[in-house]
């Protein structure tokens, strides 16, 4: 599994568990608004991503819309975790 696939799978598990939604609802184009993520969900995503990929998702990334959907989140984590490994 590529790094991005692994990240998407991890986020899918997490979001399905948090929101009790269908797995198919979590795809790269799904926005956080579509998924109805609230502030608690963001925090849980943050903590989980930090633990698994050592990537710090500062709140401003979500607040200013830099990361607004699942695909952008996957890309960001992939880029930052590569940077961490490098």
């Amino acid at each position, binding site marked *: 599994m590529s790094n991005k696939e692994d990240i998407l799978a991890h986020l899918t598990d997490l979001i399905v568990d*948090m929101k009790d939604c269908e797995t198919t609802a979590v795809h790269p184009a799904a926005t956080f608004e579509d998924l109805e993520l609230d502030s*608690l969900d963001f*925090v849980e995503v*943050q903590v989980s991503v930090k633990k698994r990929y050592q990537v710090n998702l*500062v709140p401003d990334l979500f607040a*200013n*819309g830099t990361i607004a959907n699942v695909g952008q989140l996957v890309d960001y984590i992939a880029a930052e975790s590569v940077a961490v490994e490098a």
Partner: protein
Amino acid sequence: MVRETRDSLSDRPWDLVCVGTGISALTYGALRLREAPGQRMLFLEQHNVPGGYSSEFVRPKQGARFDCSLHKLTGMGETGNLRQLFRELDLESSVELVFSPAWFQVAGGVELMLDQVPSRMRDALCDAFPDEAGAIDAFLYEVEVHGRNSYMQFEVMLGRFEPDFKALRVAHRTLKIITVLDALRARFKDPRLIEILSLPAIYIGAFPEQCAFLYYLHVVYASLYERSAYMRGGSQQLSRLLVSQIESMGGEVRLKTDVEQVLIDPDSGLATGVRTDRGEVRADRVMINASPRYALETLLPPLDALAPHRARAAEQVTANATTTLYLVLDCPPESIGLDHAETMVLADDPLAALEARRQARAQPTEAALCEPAYWGASSFEVTNYHALDPSGGAVVIVNVLDDIRHWPPRKTPEYRQKKRRVAEQLLARLDKVRPGLRGHVRYSEVSSPRTYERYTRNSAGSGYGNLVLPEATPNLINHNFPVRNLSFLSAWISGSGYEATMGYARMLVRSAPPARLARTGTDRSF
């Protein structure tokens, strides 16, 4: 000291211009400049004093200083979030904190002193309501666990505190979706105890039938377990200290400068600065310390890209505004029964009050329904400022939650009459629980929601931002906001109170995105 000049506002773009100098903007400025000392930051304030609600006004002839909002800074104990922030801001040595022994005194039907130490406050409640001791303990456990988790939200977001997510999830599923009133009714039998425990909702501009229980638990946790204190010199001193810090680090604060419009370049979709009544200011980044609703309706251009945000802001329910009665007595308030810094006066009949408010909310412009509901029937809060800081005079301030919609425009005879009516009603109610007090009033003055609206520009004159209703959708004003270099900060975003607004400002400073992303993140157009 802050400038009041009429010169043109410099052609060189600022790194950041901020609309408004409420406590959150000032905190943001002071913290940000510490981190990035070379930054050119400009703070513009329409009023002639900085601070927004964190300010005061004086009546020299009466020897009185009236604080516009502050009576309690929560989180001021050794481990409190605000205390830590005071340390980071080097404010601890400049301010004298006053810790009152009482959380609040209860008057009207039940006379009770609730201590600030949770175990003593528990004992006082259990003595007064012995049959409810078990429920009181269970409630305090909820405050300690769920209130604490919720209180730590900014620390969690900054990765400095990891809560038990299972407990937090349960709290969000079960405690966030019920009102304070429903939750307390499910936990207690005695209507008097329910009314007493409902009182802290006033701190967030809510009645117990409106506010989400989880948010309320956090407020109780913040004031009781993390301790609250007053600052000698009041809130204006806090604002002044932050202004001088900003200025000493190269920032500028300009008063009497009204921002009329945030300028947006239609091609790039980015903010380029602001237009004020004194000319234009160019800046790389704009921050708005005002209500998003007001900003979207008045300050931002009517661009199609902002339409969904305008609609969303309009859907938010504003927390209640306040009407305030300022009193100067001819004797120390303690000598006539206002023994502690804060007294909460209970409603005579909580059920009738609830029904009166329901009717008032259904017809919010109907004075005949609103005045009895908000001024006559509901519980209200009284602060004895003399007990906190005698240098401000024999000052007592009475706050009732109110609604701007039944207040006529200012400067009309009806408006003046209404002010007289509210003063009369509140004094009569105060005199009933502290007989004789009225005879000691030397001077009185009233601020209505219209006064607050005028001085702070807050929507509906509310000092508390939006109501945190159980069914509230998260405040998504910043998500996908098309103007990427513009952000909001204030009680309308963070939740109300000094601790929340200052904590949010700190979180913004600490969570600035990596420089690489900040650069690439600004290329999105409409």
